[in-house]
């Protein structure tokens, strides 16, 4: 079967004189840029550290998909919960977790988020509302429903955001979770990052509908929402709308964000299965960082402001790298801790 064309890549930007999302404002725009640029730099650094064999195990970068994590991250409030996948560096950083904590975990050092007990696929920072990264496809969608159920039960106004890929829409847990959330009107926002590939297989080759999430929304009584996932303004706006709906007690949303990953699926993957020219086109026309730099210019944000943001990010990534290189390996005494709530691992008296 022929691959579906990468629609977002060919979509023309809005140029009819009106400026969409004008009201987002300079402050939020700078935040959105900061978040995207920070994710980009941190992940690029993670890649460099692989090459030096300082990042161990596997790792899944989301270079090219930064606008989604940044857009949702900026719309989320303290107390909201994030559930993400093995490709969760971006979502974790977007909640404000220090770069050092993330890189430290990727490098499996004692200064990492979980002191090396979780690894890159399980980034967790409960204090930032990052309630774990889940490496079993789809597992976290039902779990996110549970967090949302708690908010609803307690009458709290926090929302739960659950990120996952296009491939995830074909697993049973996706459908169970969507139905669960819909019947109970849970305050949860499901965010499908459609990067056009499952692992190595184009999603169009193995999915019965063209929009893997959007086309299924109606099966759960939800509107079809498919947005440009490389435009942080569009993402931020969609996030705000979904959050308002959730906080008002009007139930879940399913948002499909069209995007593209620049890197391979994981560390081991050079991405050779992609048609020639596809990656180059996305990088040239639809790189979220470039799009956003251009956007800021249109909205009169000064070069000096942009450079200030970039310098701040570069400094954080640089000092995080140094701190991680200097950090010790985890000590052996954490090996047998936290299997059970008493802190230990004893299964007998």
């Amino acid at each position, binding site marked *: 079967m022929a691959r579906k064309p990468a629609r977002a890549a060919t979509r023309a930007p809005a140029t009819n004189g009106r400026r969409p999302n004008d009201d987002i404002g300079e402050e939020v725009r700078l935040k959105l840029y900061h978040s995207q640029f920070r994710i980009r730099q941190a992940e690029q650094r993670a890649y460099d550290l692989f090459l030096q064999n300082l990042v161990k195990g596997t790792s899944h970068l989301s270079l090219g998909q930064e606008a989604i994590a940044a857009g949702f991250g900026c719309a989320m409030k303290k107390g909201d*919960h994030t*559930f993400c996948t093995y490709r969760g560096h971006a979502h974790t950083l977007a909640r404000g977790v220090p770069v050092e904590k993330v890189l430290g975990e990727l490098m499996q050092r004692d200064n990492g*988020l*979980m*002191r090396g*007990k*979780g690894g890159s696929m*399980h980034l*967790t*920072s*409960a*204090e930032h509302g990052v*309630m*774990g990264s*889940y490496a*079993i496809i789809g*597992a*976290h*969608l*039902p*779990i*996110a*429903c*549970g*967090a*949302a*159920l*708690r*908010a609803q*039960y*307690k009458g709290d106004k926090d929302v*739960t955001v659950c990120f996952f890929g296009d491939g995830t829409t074909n697993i*049973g*847990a996706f459908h*169970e*979770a969507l*139905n*669960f959330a819909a*019947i*109970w009107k849970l305050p949860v926002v499901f965010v499908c990052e459609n990067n056009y590939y499952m692992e190595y297989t184009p999603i169009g080759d193995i999915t019965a509908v063209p929009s893997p999430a959007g086309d299924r929304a109606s099966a759960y009584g939800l509107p079809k929402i498919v947005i440009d996932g490389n435009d942080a303004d569009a993402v931020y706006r969609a996030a705000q709308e979904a959050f308002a709906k959730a906080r008002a007690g009007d139930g879940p949303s399913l948002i499909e964000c069209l995007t593209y990953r620049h890197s391979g699926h994981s560390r081991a993957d050079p991405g050779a299965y992609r048609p020639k020219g596809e990656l180059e086109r996305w990088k040239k026309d639809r790189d979220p960082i470039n799009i956003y730099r251009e956007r800021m210019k249109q909205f009169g944000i000064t070069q000096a402001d942009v450079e200030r943001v970039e310098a701040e990010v570069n400094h954080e990534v640089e000092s995080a790298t140094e701190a991680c290189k200097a950090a010790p390996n985890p000590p052996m005494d*954490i090996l047998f*801790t*936290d*299997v*059970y*709530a*008493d*802190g230990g*691992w*004893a*299964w*007998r*008296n």
Partner: protein
Amino acid sequence: MAELTYREAVARGIAQEMTRDPDVIFFGEDVGKAGGVFKSTVGLYDQFGPRRVRDCPISEQAILGAAMGAAMTGLKPIAEIMFSDFFAVCFDYIANEFPKSRYMSNGQLKCPLVVRTANGAGSRFGAQHSQSVENWAMMIPGLKVVAPSTPRDVIGLLAAAVRDPDPVIFFEHKSLYPMKGEVPDGEIVDTLGTAKILRPGKDATILALALMVPRALEAADRLKAEHGIDAEVVDVRSLVPLDTQTIMGSVGRTHRLFTVEENPRLCGWGAEIVSIVADEAFYDLDGPPVRITTPHIPLPAADALEDAVLPTVERIAETVRRSLQS
């Protein structure tokens, strides 16, 4: 003191905990308005309402996943999986999610929930609705595993499970639901990891769980009456944490060990206990430890066939007698 059935004890145990703690919620398939397919949750919906007692779609993954998410963020959910065989449909949560989140997050996340389920044979349901699967849970680090044999213990252990800060898998035995037993009035709260010596004896230790407990007790009576053999019967009650102290103490007095399991032969909890005793108390033993199990086959449906594979009173008594008198 009142006489309750095991199924009534389930509802009373849940009600006890829901009354005590407003963060306890309960959900599963047909558990609310219908009162449960085994009628073990009758009355809860009327007492606590649809906000706290929820009927779920046939979505085992969503049921366990939602229980986990709610537990992680502050509630104390009790989730029901109708038949324990269906654990296979949602095993990711049991094997990968509940038990690992605390460890993987280096203690940042918690998962204080209870999964209740109807386990075991005796209802002629065949191989996909009759299994004893407590071993599936026992083998996973991070879970706690409980299986009561009396109405009183249902309440006490369920309370302990709900109050426990770790994920607990709670196996009810479907053939025990109609069984009656004395239950004291007022709140009952047990401690996990406490085996109970139900019948003291000096000649042999018989370890049993759930439905095998009443059978072991009857076998012990028979051994005494017919052969003058004085067997001690220990209800293991909780596989994790495992009360090895009580078990070793018993073996230290009787010097002979028998385990009675409903599971298929391979890799049962009895094998684990035998191995622990062999490792740590070998010189207490006067003879080889003996496992009494079902054969390593799927469970048949027909009553004569099903009866033939589960350990019976007869088989337990005979196995102990032959072993002691050989």
